[in-house]
């Protein structure tokens, strides 16, 4: 189980997170929804240890994730896999080395075995063996996302984090990525957190949804209840209304 309690983070006078509490059961898929600047990415970065929260605790099956350094952080990160918003594949390494980076790094496999295993992971995310030897920069965004997903699951982590997985993808590729994420979570039995502002994507990959607004959880509940939550913030966000509690900057009137 992943448990977040009282997570708080400020950057100067900007109070991004104001005491977040979340509990995610093992094997559950939680989507954190929220607009730009609502604190979704900061929450994810606190879980990954990229940012130290000002206050609060994060535990994975009872093990603390906050303030870890050196080997403790390294050991914890082996239990967590992450798909970055823009895949963040290492430019200088071919696809197969990207996928098998962590197992190679810890000497769990030889390079020959790693290449063979990478092909298996690539096939699992719907990619052909032929791309294994080429550099990620030569591939389309959708393929890069799939490789990022293969890399995230290759170490068979307990917790999977997905940062805006459908950003920059067309609707069809976005649906494929969502389907892959959903099947991966189910097959691996991993706990998953996805942050997104894509409502359709959220409904496809989640068991539960939490709505982040002004640094706090405005609503949380089963994904099936998202569209009829009864919460004014959630209603406005999921239906894309311009009026409601979420302020929308006024645009200049269009000239005739």
């Amino acid at each position, binding site marked *: 189980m992943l448990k977040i309690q009282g997570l708080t983070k400020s950057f100067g006078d900007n109070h991004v997170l104001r005491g977040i509490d979340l509990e995610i059961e093992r094997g559950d898929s939680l989507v954190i929804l929220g607009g730009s600047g609502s604190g979704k990415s900061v929450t994810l*970065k606190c879980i*990954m*240890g*990229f940012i130290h929260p000002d206050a609060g605790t994060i535990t994975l099956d009872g093990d603390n994730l906050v303030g870890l350094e050196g080997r403790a*952080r*390294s*050991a914890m*990160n*082996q239990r*967590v*896999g*992450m798909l*970055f*918003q*823009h895949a*963040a*594949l*290492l*430019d*200088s390494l071919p696809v197969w080395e990207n996928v098998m*980076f*962590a197992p190679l*790094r*810890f000497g769990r496999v030889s390079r020959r075995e790693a290449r063979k295993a990478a092909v298996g992971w690539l096939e699992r995310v719907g990619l052909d063996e032929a791309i294994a030897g080429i550099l990620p920069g030569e591939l389309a965004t959708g393929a890069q996302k799939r490789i990022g997903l293969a*890399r995230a699951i290759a*170490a068979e982590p307990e917790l999977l984090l997905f940062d805006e997985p459908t950003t920059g993808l067309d609707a069809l590729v976005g649906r494929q990525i969502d389907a892959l994420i959903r099947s991966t979570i189910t097959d691996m039995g991993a706990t998953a957190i996805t942050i997104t502002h894509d409502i359709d994507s959220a409904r496809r990959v989640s068991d539960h949804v939490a709505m982040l607004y002004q640094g706090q959880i405005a609503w949380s509940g089963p994904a099936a209840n998202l569209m009829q939550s009864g919460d004014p913030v959630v209603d406005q966000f999921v239906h894309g209304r311009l009026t409601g509690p979420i302020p929308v900057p006024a645009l200049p009137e269009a000239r005739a």
Partner: protein
Amino acid sequence: MINPFAFVGRVVLDFFQTIGSVAVFAFMGLSHAVRPPFFWRNYMRHFIEIGYLSLPVVALTTLFSGMVLALQSYSGFSRFSAEGAVAMVVALSITRELAPVLAGLMVAGRIGAAMAAEIGTMRVTEQIDALEALSTNPYSYLVAPRLIAGILMMPFLVAVGDIIGVMGGYIVGVYKLGFNSAAYLQQTWDVLETEDVVSGLVKAAVYGFIVTLMGCYHGYRSTGGAQGVGRATTQAVVSSAILILIANYFVTELFFTK
């Protein structure tokens, strides 16, 4: 209205903060070079990048510098009938000063800029975050191999530059100015002392450290997308060049002030 004391104070504090930040970065990079894990493939890549692929640019620079030096010193020394000192001037200037400084500046432009751009791009595209997510310390993976390659490969480049620079002077001296070939080489051999060559190689190691440190540091700290990467690249080259010229004085003083 701007308070002048506050302004000066802020500038001084920023200056010391930057020095502290660079020192901590250098310590982190070097400390990860002496403890596992070692990413040997990265070390090899940067050894080749700095030591082998920079050879043509350093060779050309030192070759023509040696040639120009022979011409200039001949034309200057002929005013007081001291043309015979050309070989000595070329040998000492190349080994003590020109080869290390020119190689340092050329490598700063070629390698320092590339390092800042590559690491800066990795920073803004979250590749450095991805490394951490994959339980890999970016100092071990990115910084340490570059620093060690810079420190070890620059002396090699300068040693080659020394030979080529002296040969540049020899070519002009013998084939254009009419010096006797054997006498020119003998004069070069006689005038050079171990200290002349060693001081140049020590300078090279220092410049290699400066260039790679500045490239890594500015790249690692770059922010703000493509513009930030461009700024980091410029800062890496400019700061490397300035620090090389400053360090040149202090290393020279270390070796040649009795």
